[in-house]
């Protein structure tokens, strides 16, 4: 348990720091790279939680596809901007709101789940494996799955339609 705990904290600190940099960085490419860090961290956390299929998917999909997409986005919208322009005029209220939200959330969480433990045992491993997830996905959740695939298709077409140069 201790090993996982140590791993969690290290990764968590890295993720938190990276996340903060994502929203404060003055360089678009840097921000994207920090985002990738966070995403990889999340993938690692999933594996700590013995959800290996989700972790791997996260890694491939996000780090492989989404991050690349972002980089493309940065390239095509490269605007002549001063670094200071990256934030708008409601920076401070935004900070206040997010801090307030964080405080409320943390208080709520501690209040609600203060003593709950996650037990990382073999039976947990069993439900995180590909076959378990796959079974569930294609039996119980087959209709939502199909719907999501339709959605993806629609989003694909939509993205093309929107971004197409007429």
């Amino acid at each position, binding site marked *: 348990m201790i090993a996982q705990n140590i791993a969690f904290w290290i990764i968590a600190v890295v993720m938190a720091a990276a*996340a903060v940099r994502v*929203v404060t960085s003055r360089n678009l490419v840097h*921000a994207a790279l920090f*985002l990738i860090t966070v995403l990889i961290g*999340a993938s690692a956390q999933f594996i700590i*939680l013995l959800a290996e*299929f989700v972790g791997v998917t996260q890694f491939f999909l996000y780090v492989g596809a989404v991050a690349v997409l972002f980089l493309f986005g940065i390239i095509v919208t490269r605007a002549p901007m001063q670094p200071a322009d990256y934030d*708008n*005029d409601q920076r401070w209220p935004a900070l206040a709101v997010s801090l307030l939200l964080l405080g409320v959330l943390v208080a709520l969480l501690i209040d609600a*789940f203060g003593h709950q433990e996650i037990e990382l045992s073999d039976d947990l491993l069993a439900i995180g494996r590909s076959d378990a997830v796959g079974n569930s996905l294609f039996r119980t959740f087959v209709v939502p799955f199909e719907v999501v695939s339709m959605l993806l298709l629609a989003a694909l077409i939509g993205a093309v339609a929107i971004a197409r140069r007429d």
Partner: protein
Amino acid sequence: MALNQFLILSAFLFCTGVYGVLARRNGVLVLMSVELMLNAVNINLVAFSAFVRDVGGQIFALFVITIAAAEVGVGLAIVLLIYRNLDSPDLDRVDQLKG
């Protein structure tokens, strides 16, 4: 391991994302912050999945990942369109809803 350590990490990531969404001007950066929030949700889902020992949470996380991918696709397309029309991805200038 405590359930809360995951949840609080997730809460932190989420709030960071909120800040980013609220305070950033660049459309791409806002989208990135949205990704942060979605990720926070994912962590939550997987943590609870492990906590209640049910695969449902993981399945939902998978769906969220999928939808996030779709969202980035469409979102970037919109940012591209804004950029093309206004010559900048600056969201402050997108105020056609103004009354």
